[in-house]
């Protein structure tokens, strides 16, 4: 999150190993643990993508968090997402302490906070981390869920350890531990303990089932803490391939896989991803970092079958991964350098972003992403197809933003511009639109032709706006409709 770096992260972050050298080893008593579990209150502002010029909805909520080091509070990303103000309250005091988000990781739903003045928190016990708890072992969840003001403790049993989706971003899946203690709103961000050690962060539940809660286990937490160790959260990395299970005998023969041979077919390689130019569709991935890959794309880790992407899960941008694959019967060994793949975030829920838009003569243009998609529910198959194939077909190479004409405001200039809402803008004055900034440049260029033409994908005729009308129309429509700014193009950094 580039934006959060603006707050400055001068705090020297401890390596998780350093946390083990906690001076207060004696403080394992429950009272000390409870003291270190704090209540977090956040005041939020959620952008409205349908009226991107407006401030959005103000609201708030509470969650839990806990101290893991000097002035370091761990919680869920969703507890402090879209927050304008964060307050932390100790168990034994009513005082609310102003806090700020130091690091936030939406892809694994974790955040690290600090208070402005850490004096009141001095001497509190820093909670230590344990391992992934065993199946059937007992854990306790501590936090400030709904139903009362005081601290709450529930006990449960570890009922499943699995690779599951994280609801916060909608698109990321990581290791998850399911417990049979209910996790309720407000529990989020609180620690799950076993033998006085943190084995997870409570983070989500199931709507259709009672007594199932999910926690983020320590491997995911440790990865987050290591990632931010250099003062920056670099996000998860991706191998950038899609596999297809290699069960069909004819397919195996075509790809020259020996009988009973291991390996999964590479069905597609993400353009510009780490494997682009290295692997190609039809390659058979045999092993990853020396872990043999089976025909369904699984590897074995500590006796458990897990998807091969688990190997990449534990790695960071810049790390290498060894791949062994078969191409037309020939074995190849390569080492690829992993990197984050920002374009696939088009499918993730965005938080804390101010919606970008351009207003022009009654027309509103916005870049397509998940937030926009869910706000408008586009039903045109064309828009749906472009959205779906944005990454697969490398549409981002040609158009970093898919610019959508989202609204046509009522005005005498626009009264016959119908059937254009929710269509993708292909060209403005004959130039293909690369991104929203480009659209803005084209629409507001200094020397315009007599008629500004806007060509939308799949619409039979162009939109035509006489350039002499633009200024007066902008003024008139913006005033009538309470649109007080003509555009927001975002920070100058590339989208993340």
């Amino acid at each position: 999150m580039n934006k959060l770096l603006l707050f400055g992260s001068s705090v020297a972050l401890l390596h998780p190993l350093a946390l083990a050298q906690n001076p207060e080893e004696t403080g394992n008593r429950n009272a000390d643990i409870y003291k270190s579990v704090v209540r977090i209150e956040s005041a939020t502002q959620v952008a409205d993508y349908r009226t991107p010029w407006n401030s959005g909805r103000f609201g708030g909520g509470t969650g839990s968090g806990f101290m893991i080091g000097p002035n370091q509070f761990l919680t869920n990303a969703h507890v402090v997402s879209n927050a304008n103000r964060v307050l932390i309250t100790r168990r034994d005091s009513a005082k609310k302490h102003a806090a700020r988000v130091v690091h936030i990781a939406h892809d694994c739903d974790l955040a690290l906070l600090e208070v402005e003045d850490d004096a009141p928190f001095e001497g509190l016990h820093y909670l230590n981390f344990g391992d992934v708890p065993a199946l059937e072992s007992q854990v306790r969840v501590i936090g400030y869920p709904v139903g009362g003001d005081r601290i709450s403790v529930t006990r449960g049993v570890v009922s499943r350890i699995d690779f599951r989706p994280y609801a916060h971003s909608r698109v990321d899946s990581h290791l998850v531990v399911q417990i049979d203690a209910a996790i309720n709103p407000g529990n989020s961000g609180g620690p799950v303990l076993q033998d006085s050690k943190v084995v997870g962060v409570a983070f989500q539940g199931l709507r259709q089932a009672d007594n199932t809660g999910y926690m983020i286990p320590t491997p995911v937490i440790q990865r987050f803490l290591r990632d931010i160790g250099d003062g920056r959260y670099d996000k998860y990395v991706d191998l950038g391939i899609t596999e297809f299970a290699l069960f069909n005998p004819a397919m195996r023969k075509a790809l020259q896989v020996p009988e009973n041979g291991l390996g999964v077919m590479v069905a597609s390689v993400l353009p510009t991803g780490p494997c682009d130019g290295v692997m190609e569709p039809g390659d058979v991935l045999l092993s990853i970092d020396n872990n043999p890959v089976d025909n369904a794309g699984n590897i074995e880790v500590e006796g458990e079958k897990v998807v091969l992407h688990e190997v990449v899960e534990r790695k960071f941008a810049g790390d290498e991964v060894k791949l062994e694959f078969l191409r037309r019967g020939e074995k190849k060994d390569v080492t690829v350098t992993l990197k984050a793949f920002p374009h696939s975030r088009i499918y993730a829920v965005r938080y804390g972003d101010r919606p970008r838009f351009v207003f022009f003569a009654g027309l509103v243009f916005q870049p397509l992403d998940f937030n926009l998609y869910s706000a408008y529910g586009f039903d045109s198959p064309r828009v749906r197809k472009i959205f779906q194939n944005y990454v697969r077909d490398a549409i981002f190479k040609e158009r970093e933003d898919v610019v959508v004409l989202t609204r046509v405001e009522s005005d005498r200039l626009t009264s016959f511009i119908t059937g254009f809402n929710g269509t993708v803008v292909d060209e403005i004055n004959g130039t293909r639109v690369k991104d929203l900034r480009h659209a803005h440049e084209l629409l507001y260029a200094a020397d315009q032709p007599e008629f500004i033409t806007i060509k939308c994908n799949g619409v039979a005729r162009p939109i035509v706006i006489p350039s002499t009308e633009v200024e007066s129309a902008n003024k008139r429509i913006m005033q009538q409709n309470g649109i007080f700014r003509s555009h927001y193009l975002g920070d100058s950094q590339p989208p993340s």
Partner: protein
Amino acid sequence: MFPPRPLFFCLSLLLVVGGLPAPAHAAVKAKGLLRINTTTQTYNVAQPWELNQPQRRRGLGAILEDGNILTTGEMAANSTYIEFESADGAHTVPAEVIAIDYEANLALLAPEKGANREWIDKLGTLGINGPAKIDDKVNIWQLEDNGDAIRTEGTVRSVDLLSTFASGHYFLCYEVKASMQSASSSYTLPVTRDGRLLGILASYNSKDQISDVVAPDILKRFLEDIRDGRHEGFPSLGIATVLTEDPQFRKWLGLGDEQGGLYVSRVLPESGADESGLKKGDVLLTVNGHAIDRRGYYEDPTYGRLVWSHLVRGSGQVGDKLALLIMRDGKEQQLEAVLQRPPDHLIPSHMYDKAPPYLIKGGLVFQELNRPYLEAFGKEWRSRAPLDLLDALNNPEDYEEGRKRLVFLSRVIRTPATIGYDQVNNLIVTEANGQKVTDMKSLAAALTNPKNGLHSIRIDDIPYVIYLDPEASDLVDKALLKRGLPALQRLP
């Protein structure tokens, strides 16, 4: 043709046979009416080698002066058996279809050759009347179970171009306001005025009490067309147009304030318009001297304001010439188009009386995409149907190159040859064994020629290529035939 008006949704007149008791009407003598009973069967879209359960419907036909019987196309479409029945049920005779037009929703039937039609000839005949004017009183005819005729009086409320059966085809219809009750034989009904046939009622909306009646002009053109024993169908120009109401758009096009005109947004290749030299971006100003306004209406001498496409579809025959005045680059230009049948569509809009082509190889089921396949995804098919196939339906021009039909892998039957492909479905096929797939025939030809001992089929999504072992798939095919599959392929 894509007339610039919204689709008009009507309830088909499918009333429960023997439903509500009809109110006491004075029994009226019906002339030139008989019952038509049809059994229809459609193909199963998921398993195109099979027919669905047969359905029966009853309707009425009008006996024309030449002794043939006119009814709606919907009544006769997909029929496996048709019979005529006298009002009292005393006589029946098997019938055959002389001609059927799905677009205009008309069918001409006759008793089977050699069958006894004496009783029909005693029923009298109906000459065709028309045209009607707005506010004209008309009679809609129904038959009760006891053989009595029911006559419902209605009023012509408006004249418009409507699509009453095959979607996307708009023809001249009268909208008649009448309060009808349910009675048997209600699927399609003759409408008369002054004792002569005015039109055929194609649908009835009981909520608004509005019926759509195919106009006599269309009836006459249909009968004229088939007079030579050959049914050519209604002509088309082959363009899609956009209204020019938007003043900014008009300025850009160089249209004056007093001018009308339609913006030509698409010219179908090999259509009459294409051959006349009409191009996308032209503005159509007049057709056969009739000025087209900015909403696409012209002043019809009989009916007043009508959508321009009536000048093509409802006024001419295939082979007729059409004078077009257009504006191109700000200059007016005269073109002459010869009316033709619409060119063959990449994705057929209907499959009435057509067996859908398919091909099965080792358990992979291939079909040619048509609109009914997508409509089978239910009421919400426009959002539920597979995205890539929907996109092809909406933007056929993006898929037309090198294709006659869009072949797709519709589903995978689980067989020993298709292990691992279970989840693959509804993907567009581009190549088979290195050959471009342009239609089902080309796929069938390509699959006779495996390369390097394997069949390979290229599709447009993961896994992108599907391989089949020729021997294993031949064995599977044999087994499928043994287990009741009638044939491995049906080529068009």
